[in-house]
């Protein structure tokens, strides 16, 4: 079994007609994801790849297709509106890939999502992948294989790196999730760890963090208090200087807070095996 996404999940793609949107939707469909519709105002009634109906609004798409997952891949100026639209249309799982959403907008939207029944993953995330079942987002399908490891990460390609290493080492995955590198995100490490802890098929967990914020500290506290399953971790940015933003909007050590060192210490203190090198992770799980 997997978390958040399974073979019953029905996905719509908001921004399906864009360059990135159409490219990734095709890859998702090739991987076997059940893409039931797309959303693009003004293109309602048209078809994507001849098989996927396009709708003007999420509301209509949901009414007609019964979709419960919306993948949002629209420009930053439109992305927050898409979150409100998804919540108000009753979408259960909203996955926002879009980067560069202003954080003030995101703080408002975050409060809105929190008060609703929807779950948000992202923004600025690579999405999720359940091996051999489906994927929503950017993760390449070829690197993953089914198994009993749950992977949760703030990052994109670094996640691929780790998932690939796991697969190469014969360690398959239940679900791989990128929660995103922005300062304010809908789903945190703690949320996902809790789901992995409760998922009977997940036996081991990999956490990939980075500098900035205190999500990894919160994760360590959660692991210490509540987790029975073994966790291995890697924290990126050990060599990053303070006060400088490392690519991700959230990856910055400020006021002495959010260093890799303190995160590693907290995780180790919670019994987590922390890799010095992401290629070590499979060994730490064995």
């Amino acid at each position: 079994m997997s978390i958040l996404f399974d073979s019953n999940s029905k996905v719509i793609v908001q921004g399906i007609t864009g360059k990135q949107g159409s490219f990734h939707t095709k890859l998702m469909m090739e991987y076997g994801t059940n893409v039931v519709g797309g959303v693009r105002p003004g293109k309602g009634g048209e078809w994507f790849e001849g098989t996927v109906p396009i709708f003007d609004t999420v509301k209509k798409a949901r009414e007609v297709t019964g979709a419960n997952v919306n993948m949002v891949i629209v420009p930053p100026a439109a992305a927050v509106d898409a979150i409100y639209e998804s919540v108000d249309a009753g979408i259960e799982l909203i996955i926002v890939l879009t980067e560069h959403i202003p954080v003030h907008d995101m703080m408002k939207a975050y409060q809105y999502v929190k008060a609703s029944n929807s779950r948000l993953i992202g923004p600025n995330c690579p999405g999720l992948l359940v091996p051999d079942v489906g994927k929503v987002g950017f993760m390449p399908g070829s690197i993953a294989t089914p198994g009993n490891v749950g992977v949760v990460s703030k990052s994109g390609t670094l996640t691929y790196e780790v998932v690939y290493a796991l697969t190469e080492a014969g360690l398959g995955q239940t679900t791989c999730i990128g929660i995103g590198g922005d300062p304010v995100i809908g789903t945190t490490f703690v949320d996902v760890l809790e789901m992995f802890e409760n998922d009977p098929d997940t036996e081991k967990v990999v956490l990939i963090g980075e500098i900035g914020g205190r999500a990894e500290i919160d994760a360590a506290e959660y692991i210490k208090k509540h987790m029975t399953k073994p966790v291995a971790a890697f924290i990126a940015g050990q060599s990053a200087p303070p006060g400088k933003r490392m690519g991700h909007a959230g990856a910055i050590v400020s006021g002495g807070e959010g260093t890799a060192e303190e995160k590693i210490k907290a995780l180790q203190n919670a019994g987590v095996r922390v890799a010095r090198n992401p290629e070590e992770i499979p060994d730490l799980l064995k």
Partner: protein
Amino acid sequence: MNLHEYQSKFRFGEFGIPIPRGKVATTPKEAYEIAKELGGFVVIKSQVLVGGRGKAGGVKLAKSAEEARDLAAEILSKTIKGLPVRKVLVDPGVRFNQEIYLGITNDRAVGKPVMMASSEGGVEIEEIARTKPEAIVKEYIDPCFGLHAYQVNNIASGINLPYDHWKQFTQIAMALWQCYLASDAELAEINPLVITDEGQLLAIDGKMIIDDSALPRHPDLAEMRDIEDEPEAETRAREAGISYVKLDGQIGCMVNGAGLAMTTMDMTKLYGGDDIGPANFLDIGGGASPEKVAAALRIILSDPNVKSILINIFGGITRCDDVARGLLVAYEEVKPDVPMVIRLQGTNAKEGRQIIDEANIPNLVSASTLTEAAQKAVEAAKGAM
């Protein structure tokens, strides 16, 4: 994006926060004129985007216009933490009897702005948090409802501000919130907010950090970016759509993805030990066209400390053979003369590696794991030192 003190304070002023009537000078003569206009008793403050200016001798008091000219000359000739001082702010001197901290920042975990205040202002908030955490009063602001007047009362009460100042304090706190909001700020901070001997509140130092993602909707703020005060390579990288941060090491890194780029830096440090480390953070983003790879190479090579280059690409959606071909084209264009290690993994990695190997370029070798790549890059750098 960090704003200078003078930019932050002038913006605070636009929102109605009382600030000193100072002006910016780029020459001692200008400083003299401003000081004369202000009556002679002034403070000369270096405008560079780093903390600890005071300790570095970048802030000085002058009692006359002549002294202001001399001190400005001294400060304008300084380099503070690697940044040459190009501007000074000449503010009127102020006598005061209390320093307050008042700031708003984003609390990531809570997803809300938080207003913080302390009666122990004048030092950094992190310093207060370490030494006297009970002196910090916080109010979380619901981003949908904004700062409520009662919250400012809670703060004023919490820092034991005499009631005489509450009305002005409320105006300032509300103005700071409006300024923070209208500027898409990550931080808007008055430190210190002083109570002058005349009993007035005055923001004598200020700092703002603007959310880069929001700059497209604030052309006026985007224009405030002081490109003179950042490494030239960072300016060029931003123009090329590349995320780049200059560091102090010897191994130039070129990676796709921010997390992997940090990891690649970490690996060069892990295997480089005390002497060898990353020369930069560089994320070329999705795709890897020859133009982008070439631009990245040029940016990396503009740093004279770079002794070797480590290219680490995890092909996901990006195909490694495309990257390899792109790199060869870029290589021909840029002709880098430092040793280069390229590690391709993921989609079509094998084909990519074959293309690199067949090109048979003497200073370009490939590696299959990140560990191997990092070790080779460290060796190459050591060889070149």
